Structure formats: structure tokens, C-alpha cells
């Protein structure tokens, strides 16, 4: 059986590759080549160019922005092997995936797992076409790392819930159409009193205030709910199942934050190469500052072993058919290392590496400064490093609950 299938599969893959190449030639606008959709993780304001719109619509129509999602809900219905081919060919063509954001990274996969048939039919297709922006209603002023302490209350009013409370760190809240939120439906039980529901951001009683961060940007908001009516149809799963569903969604978030692959692209250029442009070198071409050179090498060695670790996690997961236990360390390691890299970049550039705005700074320098500042958030959100340590100690190492 297997020997018969292999050549056939190979032929299929070749045919699919040709199909992708043709699609890209027909639809990917030349002017977008090499640009990217860097903000897809945190939805930015709507300012699509006609070319960007055309590209998004072409990908959305195929479902290839969400290549492995089921076809019946607008996904690409591709196998993992086909998705890999798509990714490879897009890479070769300098094309980016225009379908992104929280709907794709977190909410979609969770709804596909827990949503009702009606909910999937209603909410998944617009995500696959990149038409609807989702935001995350999780954290509250008194529910950060202790997320289950959330107080936003959804009162049962028969045919609908009446929601009151405040969410914070709502990523992209000012641009979002809808919010997936965890709210309290029962005050008597900390974890079992939580439910997962979907709230329209244009409902009466929703107010959004952007928060300015130390990086000068406002990717997060405070979101206030005052007597907001939410139809019962918008409850995902059962009442009280919200904590389970909400945690599942966080697993998708963590995988995305640590993501060795995309980090590798962002951090592609060797710090040593950059340093040679800013720092004096000796006759041998080596950096003259031996201490700085040592720091850079020390970092790059650890960064390389992180990339190897991320790759190993993928290989082990494939071989075991489940999540490898080292996946639990990727967020903790990846975020710490990228912060370290930002700090080293400043040391390499000196004050030239601390520019805020204006003439005299390259775009790459200014972006690095904002990235350095915003990067401080990565060890806090998505489950802080301390929370990751608790999870590793308890779930992986079998140490006892400290509380």
C-alpha cells in the first residue's frame, strides 16, 4: 500500500506546488514583494492600499490565509504537507500572509474546537477572509497573572446576558469589531463560575480607551462594559466552561509569542555583523572591544541553541503525536533572549541606538528602540515568566502547588 501511495503523493505535491506558483503569479502584486504584515499580531488601524486589499481578498477567497482550517468554514482545507509547500512558495515569491490577527492565531482554533455549528458558520468564514477583527477580553485591573480572579459579571436576563465590568490590556480594542471574553456568570466558584462569550464592540455600553505605552504606541486599551446586552447565542460551550476554553486559547497565544520561526526572521541579522558597522575593528577584522565581542558571542550561542530547541520541540511533537514537554520552556526562553538582544543592540550603537524620533536616525534604529521598549511586555503578557515557571514546576516537574 505504502509503496503505491508514495509516488502518487509525490505527484500530487508537485501538482499542488505548481498550482500555488500559478496562483502567486496571478494574484500577488509585485509592489508588495518583500513587504510584510508585521502588525498582523496586533491589529493596526485600517489603512489598506488597493494592492494590499486585492491580495487579502485573493488569499481569503482560497482560504489559504488559514491553510489547514476546514474548507466548509472558509479555510484552505490543506494537509500539513500542502501548507508547508504554500509557505515555501510564498517565501520564494516574497509574499506574506495577509490574513492574521487574534482571530487567526487564537480565537479561530479555539472556536473550531469548542464552538457550536452555528457559531463556527457565523464567525470562522469572516476570519478566513480577514474581514473581522477580534480582540481579547481577558485581563482586568485586578486579574492579571491571577486571571481567574476576574470580576466582569454577566447576569442572566432570560434571553440575554447583561454584562458589567472592566477589561484591560485589550490588544487592538480600538480597532476591533468583536471581542472574545471570559466573564463571571457565577460568583460562588472562582474557576467554575467563568464563561466564555462573544461581545460585539459596537454594542451600546462598550467604551474603549487606548493606553499609551512606554514605547509611545497604544496597542492596548481599557475596555468598559456598562449594561451591555449579549445574546445567549454568543455563549461558547456551556456556562462555567469558560476557564477551560480560555486556558486552551492561551496555549495558542503562548505558541505564537515564543514562535522560534518568526523570531528567527525578525532577528535574522547577526549582531556581530551589525556591530562591525558601528564599532571599530582591528586589522584582523575582529571587533576591537573584546568585552563587547564576548557578550555578543555569548548571546548568539544561546540564541542558536534556542532556535535548535524550538526546532526540536516541533520534531518531538511530530514524532510523539502530542505536545513535547520542552514546548513549555519556549516562551520563557524566547522572550528573555529577544529582550537581551535589544539591550545588546543598544550597547552596540551607543546613544545612536536610543533615538526617539527625528532626523539623524535610521528607520532601523528607531524601530529597534520602540521594539526594545515594547519588548518588555513579552515577559509579562501571555502568562508572565513567573507564571510559566509555576506551570513548568507544577505540570512538567511534578513539584507541589505552592499555594
Amino acid at each position, binding site marked *: 500500500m505504502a509503496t503505491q501511495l508514495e509516488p502518487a503523493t509525490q505527484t500530487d505535491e508537485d501538482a499542488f506546488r505548481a498550482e500555488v506558483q500559478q496562483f502567486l503569479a496571478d494574484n500577488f502584486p509585485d509592489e508588495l514583494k518583500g513587504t510584510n504584515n508585521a502588525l498582523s499580531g496586533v491589529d493596526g488601524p485600517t489603512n489598506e492600499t488597493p494592492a494590499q486589499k486585492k491580495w487579502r481578498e485573493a488569499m481569503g477567497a482560497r482560504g489559504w490565509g488559514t491553510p489547514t482550517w476546514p474548507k466548509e468554514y472558509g479555510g484552505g482545507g490543506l494537509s500539513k504537507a500542502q501548507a508547508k509547500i504554500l509557505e515555501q512558495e510564498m517565501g520564494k515569491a516574497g509574499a506574506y500572509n495577509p490574513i492574521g490577527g487574534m482571530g487567526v492565531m487564537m480565537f479561530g482554533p479555539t472556536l473550531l474546537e469548542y464552538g457550536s455549528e452555528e457559531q463556527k458558520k457565523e464567525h470562522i468564514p469572516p476570519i478566513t477572509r480577514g474581514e473581522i477583527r477580534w480582540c481579547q477580553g481577558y485581563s482586568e485591573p485586578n486579574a492579571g497573572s491571577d486571571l481567574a480572579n476576574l470580576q466582569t459579571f454577566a447576569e442572566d436576563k432570560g434571553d440575554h446576558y447583561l454584562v458589567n465590568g472592566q477589561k484591560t490590556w485589550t490588544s487592538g480594542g480600538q480597532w476591533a469589531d468583536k471581542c472574545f471574553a471570559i466573564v463571571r456568570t457565577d460568583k460562588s466558584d472562582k474557576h467554575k463560575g467563568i464563561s466564555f462569550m462573544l461581545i460585539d464592540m459596537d454594542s451600546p455600553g462598550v467604551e474603549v480607551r487606548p493606553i499609551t505605552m512606554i514605547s509611545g504606541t497604544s496597542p492596548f486599551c481599557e475596555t468598559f462594559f456598562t449594561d451591555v446586552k449579549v445574546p445567549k447565542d454568543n455563549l461558547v460551550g456551556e456556562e462555567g466552561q469558560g476557564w477551560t476554553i480560555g486556558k486552551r486559547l492561551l496555549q495558542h497565544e503562548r505558541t505564537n509569542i515564543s514562535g522560534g520561526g518568526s523570531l528567527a526572521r525578525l532577528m535574522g541579522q547577526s549582531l556581530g*555583523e551589525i556591530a562591525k558597522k558601528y564599532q571599530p575593528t582591528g586589522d584582523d577584522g575582529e571587533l576591537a572591544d573584546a568585552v563587547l565581542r564576548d557578550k555578543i*558571542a555569548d548571546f548568539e550561542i544561546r540564541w542558536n541553541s534556542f532556535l535548535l530547541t524550538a526546532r526540536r520541540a516541533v520534531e518531538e511533537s511530530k514524532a510523539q503525536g502530542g505536545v513535547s514537554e520542552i514546548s513549555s520552556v519556549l516562551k520563557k526562553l524566547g522572550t528573555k533572549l529577544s529582550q537581551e538582544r535589544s539591550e545588546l543592540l543598544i550597547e552596540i550603537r551607543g546613544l545612536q541606538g536610543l533615538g526617539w524620533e527625528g532626523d539623524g536616525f535610521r528607520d532601523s534604529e528607531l524601530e529597534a528602540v520602540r521594539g526594545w521598549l515594547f519588548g518588555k511586555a513579552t515577559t509579562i503578557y501571555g502568562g508572565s515568566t513567573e507564571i510559566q515557571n509555576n506551570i513548568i514546576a507544577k505540570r512538567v516537574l511534578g*513539584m507541589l502547588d505552592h499555594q
Partner: protein
Amino acid sequence: MAVLNEEQEMLRDMAREWAVNESPVTEFRKVRASGEPEAFNRDAYATMAEMGWAGVIIPEEHGGSDFGFMSAGLVVEELGKTLTASPLVMNTVAASAIVLGGSDEQKAKWLPKLASGEAIATIAVDEGATHDPSKIETSVSEGKLSGTKAFVHEAHGADLFVVAAKDGLYLVEKGDGVSLATRKLTDQRSHADVTFDGAAADKLANGGDNLLDDVLDRARVLTAAEMLGMAQQVFDDTLAYLKQRVQFNQVLASFQALQHRMADLFADLAQMRSAVEAGLQAVDGGFGVARAATIAKAEANRVMHTMANEGIQLHGGIGMTDEYDVGFYLKRARVLEQSFGSSSYLKDRFAKLSSY
């Protein structure tokens, strides 16, 4: 853990079972108590060779199994867990020098013996206390090699030395013109300054200009594999200890201050394993070996260093006693850390390989 093939899994399981049952740390204690400078159990090494472990990287036509360095690393890792004292690592590295640089005659003469355990080989490169292959004074004149090598691993048991001279690597047999001065190090293993005084030397002429680097990279990845086993064992022992030791009416494992340190060590260990396995695989693949081996040993040095220190600290007072094993790992760790490239040497090498 890298994804292994079936024969690698069998090899690892066999090594694990043998190390746990036949060569636990109590066996190392016996070797230490014997006070013999060669510091390994000949019968145990003969058994290891019978199981094929001395020939894992030796081609089949010369009596080995040719399974490669990833496979050799699996065995070495398991033996590292129980601090098994043997010349296996050095013999494997020395054999690789002959595989890479030897003539057909040299291979036929030595490799079958090294694979069967009938003879033991080691490498003699450094001439000072700090690893630096650019500082070699040993020279050869009319087939006679002269010079002094410092802190040669497994020197006492060696029948054959692969010696680095100014103009390349040479095979020198134990005997006339070769004398050993024992250097007792903290790991209680075999180390000696070896003086070659006009000893008969047979050049390994086929390995090209990079033969010494290639051999040292093999020493680095296998040493790193031994350290990986040691680090894993210290971690496992420490975790088990924290789970049973009670203070303030609770097991230590319930204290968050200790949990987070263990989580850090767990992450470090994951990094170390990835780097070491990639180094071993690079040697087998023959691509990017220098860089991968440098990363492997640098990460092994970094993580093993911390792991040994934390192992002692987290064991508390009993970690300081000779009765507990954890101190042995610390002492062996530092010897390996300083061999074939300290962290500063390796970082410098990484920067050079990356052109900065």
C-alpha cells in the same frame, strides 16, 4: 531528545540499562578507592567493547559498527549519568583521527584493535593547562617526535597516543621515549603530563590541513555528550531530593523560590540538549561542524557549570558530603569544562567563525 532511529534507541536503552545495573556511581567509588592511576575498571571496559561501544564510529571493514557520532553520544551520555570511569570517549576521538587521517595501513593496524578493546588510544594536544591548539611546540625530526603534552586524558591506560605536532598529527605507541608524570586532578580520573623524547612517530598524512580542528571538534561534541548525561543526572537527583526533603513541615518542592530555580535549570537543560545533539548530528552530516561543535561545547560548559553549583546548593549541607554523589559531578564537570575549550576560548572561536 532528538528523534532516534530504531538501532539508536536499542543502543541507548542497552547503555542505560548497563550503566544503571552494572556501573552505578558505587563503581566509580571503587575505582577511586583503588588509587590506581589509570582509574578505570579493565573488566568493565572489556564488557563495553564486547557490546560494540568502542567501535561505534569505526567503519565496519575495520571491526566497528559505523553508527556515527550521534549514536556514540547516546552511549557516552548514559555513561556520564553514572560517572562511569573509562577511556571510551578518548578512544573514540583518537579512533576518529585515524579514520579521518590514517592511511589504509594505519587503519588496518589500529582500528580493529581499538574497536575490540584490545588496544586503547587517546589524544595528546595541549601543552599547557589551558586549551590552545595554536600553541604547539612539539616537533618531529626524522620520524622521532619530541615534546611535552599537559594533562593528557586517559594517558595511563593508553597503548597509543594521537599527538599534535607543529606539522600535523602523529601516532606514537607507548614505550621507548614516552614517559608519564601523573597529574592527580579533582575528578580522580587518569591525567598525566606525557613527555615524548625522540619517540617513534607515524604521521596521519591524509586528513588535510584541518585534521587537528576536525579531531578537536569530535572531542568537543563527545565531551559535551558526557556533560549532558551528568547535567541530566544532577537535575534528576536534585528534583527527587527536593520532593522528599521536609523542612518547616513541608517538602522543599512546594517552595516557590526553589520551583523557579528548577524551572530555570529545566530550560537550561533543554538548551544544552538541543545544542549537544545538534553538534553530534553535524559531525555525522559533515556540514557546519566547527560552528555546531563550538555551540555544543559552549552550551555544555555553561549549563553544566550552573547545574553542578545549583545541585550542591539545592541539596544543602548533605550536598557538601563525600557520601553524596553530587559533589563528584561538580569535580568532573570542571575538568571537562576546562578541556578542549573553556567558555572564553569557545566564544572567541564562535566570533571568529562568524567573522567578527
